[in-house]
């Protein structure tokens, strides 16, 4: 909250017509923290944030931290049952929410959970006697100033982010004040963030990409515009918002940008304020990326890489010349400051000379571990000593290869490497080959297990107006892939299932196909 002292009147956050100056945010989060302490919250308690993108969510985040507690963002679109799973996993007693969630909340309070208190419910909201319920304005009568919760240490947990759930049971990725602050510091350095910047936060708070908009921006004294959920569903409205807010730094998954290009008259909007476009989460199809770079020549473009467990760990600033060239995949780049990366093989031996292997990362932005999962934590890390100094590395599960120029190339997920009839196949490589065809807009490739064999399947969305059959796609693939890597089944579809963060949901694709095959 140093920025609140430097420029108290500067706007910290804006969202859908509401805004909070640094001073207002400081005062409102003080009040909330005092109210939480009054409700019996003590240091280290986990508090759920089941809220949409709105300025109150920012008050919730900083109010919880000031109370010495740990905030747990929960995707506001989850069902009552899924919310209950997260609540019980880290034993949340207090949940902060907003009135539009009432439908789900009424079901949630009927379930068996550790909940004792809801803050932000509508007037007359009914709860069982074991759960207290308050409206949001209940905390407004508290005074300002920090509550007395003792000294908060850098190593204390600050937030728990649950993995998006595309792979089995969600795991609580636990970050500390130190790892969160390190991320803010390093991202300010990497992207020259200053108090003149207006950052667009497109990600839901339950997704690690939101830490740039919620944390980095605060440390830099910049303004963050929280993109309301409605705008993420309407590219034309989103384009208008970027223009009107004079956004200087954009950060999202590629999908949001691709939709802006395909579903709006993008050249008709004045986007001259954008100085940096950062994308992450998954690869950007090179031809869409080139088209956008040509459309916005005044902006720098960067690929951001890092699993939520380390937040971010590599960066790649794309040279402007890429716009004219390329169909080459974009590197994930180099490991950023104060961090180290190694490429290892299945026997945990460090590989040199550009051999492909798993990337392991040691960075001050690294998580403390998974919440209450000693089994997982035992396998998540890798110890390695170099020049007498031992460091702890996180195993990313991502396969990479170091190019001659030192940049890392992403090859695929380790668990997306399958063996079929003795051949080793990278599903991500097949996916890249498919989406590289000019008639294909997007493709999901997945492995389906039937009773007696494994098969590669794929679902593809054709470019608008493109006429191409599955057979034609297969014959085109044969010119770029080995025959055994060409999918057995190619479905041409209108839409692909997606995870909360906008990535293609390959787990759902696999499950649905396996069920259909029986």
């Amino acid at each position, binding site marked *: 909250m140093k920025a609140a002292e430097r420029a108290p009147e500067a706007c910290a956050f804006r969202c859908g017509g509401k805004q909070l100056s640094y001073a207002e945010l400081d005062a409102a989060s003080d009040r909330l923290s005092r109210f939480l302490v009054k409700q019996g919250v003590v240091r280290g308690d986990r508090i759920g944030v089941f809220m949409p993108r709105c300025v109150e969510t920012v008050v919730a985040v900083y109010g919880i931290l000031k109370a010495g507690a740990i905030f747990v963002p929960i995707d506001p679109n989850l069902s009552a049952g899924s919310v209950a799973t997260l609540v019980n996993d880290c034993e949340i007693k207090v949940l902060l929410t907003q009135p539009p969630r009432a439908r789900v909340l009424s079901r949630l309070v009927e379930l068996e959970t550790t909940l004792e208190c809801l803050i932000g419910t509508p007037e007359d909201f009914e709860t069982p006697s074991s759960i207290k319920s308050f409206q949001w304005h209940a905390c407004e009568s508290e005074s300002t100033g920090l509550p007395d919760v003792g000294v908060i240490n850098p190593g204390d947990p600050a937030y728990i982010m649950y993995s998006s759930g595309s792979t089995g049971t969600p795991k609580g990725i636990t970050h500390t004040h130190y790892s969160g602050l390190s991320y803010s510091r390093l991202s300010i350095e990497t992207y020259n963030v200053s108090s003149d910047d207006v950052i667009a936060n497109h990600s839901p708070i339950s997704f690690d990409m939101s830490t740039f908009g919620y944390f980095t921006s605060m440390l830099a004294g910049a303004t963050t515009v929280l993109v309301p959920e409605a705008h993420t569903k*309407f*590219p*034309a*409205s989103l384009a*208008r918002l970027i223009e009107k807010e004079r956004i200087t730094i954009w950060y999202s998954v590629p999908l949001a940008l691709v939709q802006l290009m395909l579903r709006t008259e993008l050249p008709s909007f004045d986007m001259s304020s954008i100085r940096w476009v950062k994308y992450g989460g998954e690869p950007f199809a090179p031809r869409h990326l080139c088209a956008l770079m040509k459309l916005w020549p005044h902006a720098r473009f960067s690929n951001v890489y890092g699993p939520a467990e380390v937040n971010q760990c590599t960066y790649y600033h794309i040279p402007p010349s890429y716009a004219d060239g390329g169909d080459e995949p974009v590197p994930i780049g180099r490991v950023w400051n104060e961090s180290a990366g190694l490429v290892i093989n299945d026997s945990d031996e460090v590989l040199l000379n550009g051999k492909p292997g798993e990337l392991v990362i040691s960075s001050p932005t690294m998580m403390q571990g998974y919440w209450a999962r000693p089994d997982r934590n035992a396998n998540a890390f890798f110890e390695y000593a170099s020049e007498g100094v031992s460091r702890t590395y996180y195993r990313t599960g991502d396969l990479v290869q170091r190019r001659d120029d030192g940049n890392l190339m992403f090859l695929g997920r380790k668990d997306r490497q399958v063996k079929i009839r003795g051949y080793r196949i990278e599903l991500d490589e097949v996916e890249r080959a498919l989406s590289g065809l000019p008639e294909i807009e997007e493709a999901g490739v997945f492995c389906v297990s039937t009773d007696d064999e494994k098969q590669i399947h794929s679902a593809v969305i054709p470019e608008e107006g493109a006429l191409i059959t599955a057979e034609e796609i297969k014959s085109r693939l044969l010119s770029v892939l080995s025959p055994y890597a060409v999918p057995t089944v190619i479905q041409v579809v209108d*839409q692909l299932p*997606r995870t909360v963060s906008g990535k293609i949901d390959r787990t759902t694709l696999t499950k649905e196909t396996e069920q259909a095959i029986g």
Partner: protein
Amino acid sequence: MNVPPRNLTTTLLEFIKNDLAADKDISDLRPDDDLLEGSIVDSLGIMRLITFIEKEFGFAVPSEDVVIENFLTVSAIVEYLTPKLAESNND
């Protein structure tokens, strides 16, 4: 096709309740309920809703009209569509 506004409202409500958000238990959905913030319709849902409108009423929704104010509630969709359908009917 000439669809009176009341039928338009009913047709859209039925489609959203029984098809688009069939898993959401929203049998009490009203024309003025916010479809976007209450997470009733997601981004894929918007695309399906537009496809439905185009098939059902034979009117192609131009991309510049696919904005929040035209799709916030069922009433908003009806207000947007009514003059458009009348226009395409007179062509």
